[in-house]
């Protein structure tokens, strides 16, 4: 079974500052890893995904994430946040095709002016 831990439930950063949202996973096999974003009262949108290869993956809107097998982590980063980035961010893991996608509890990001 796989699981995801997002240790920071609420994060507040100033507009223009850098951001890191942490994600630790547990999986018996090399997982597929995802970051999703959920804006208020909306569904989830995929930011980026990692299957294999280069451990740093680029996503939409300037987001990137780095996979670390040794640390079992998949942290999300952004160099300069904008107020419109305020949302809830979910890290998710699966074992691949058709298997269950397990989500972390989410991190609510607030970008202050």
């Amino acid at each position, binding site marked *: 079974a796989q699981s995801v831990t997002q240790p920071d439930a609420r994060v507040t950063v100033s507009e223009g500052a850098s951001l890191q949202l942490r994600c630790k996973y547990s999986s018996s096999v090399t997982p597929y890893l995802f970051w999703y974003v959920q804006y208020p009262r909306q*569904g989830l949108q995929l930011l980026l995904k990692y299957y294999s290869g280069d451990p740093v993956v680029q996503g939409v809107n300037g987001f990137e994430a780095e996979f670390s097998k040794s640390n079992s982590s998949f942290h999300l980063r952004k160099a300069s946040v904008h107020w419109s980035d305020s949302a809830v961010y979910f890290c998710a893991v*699966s074992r691949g*095709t058709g298997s269950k996608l397990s989500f972390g509890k*989410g991190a609510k990001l607030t970008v202050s002016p």
Partner: protein
Amino acid sequence: AQTIHQWPVAEIKAVGSPLSLGCTIKGKSSPNLYWYWQATGGTLQQLFYSITVGQVESVVQLNLSASRPKDDQFILSTEKLLLSHSGFYLCAWSLAGTGEVFFGKGTRLTVV
């Protein structure tokens, strides 16, 4: 381009009343389909998944049922709602061979 449509957008229902939520995926043939539930402010929990018409697997028991009457349609239902059914229901799809899951805009259910 593929689209996923969920209906209704929101529902307010009484305890003990029936419920039917729907989801349609257009532009993809034979997708894997999923229902997720999200408590207010909470994480997402997978409820059901289906890899083909007429075949649905339950992941958790919440006194809900799901059916896939057509390749592009996924229905979530119950005959008697409980207060604990309140939350946000998300339909999602993926293609076999990828782990990527795409979500609909969700249905907000309030049971009173």
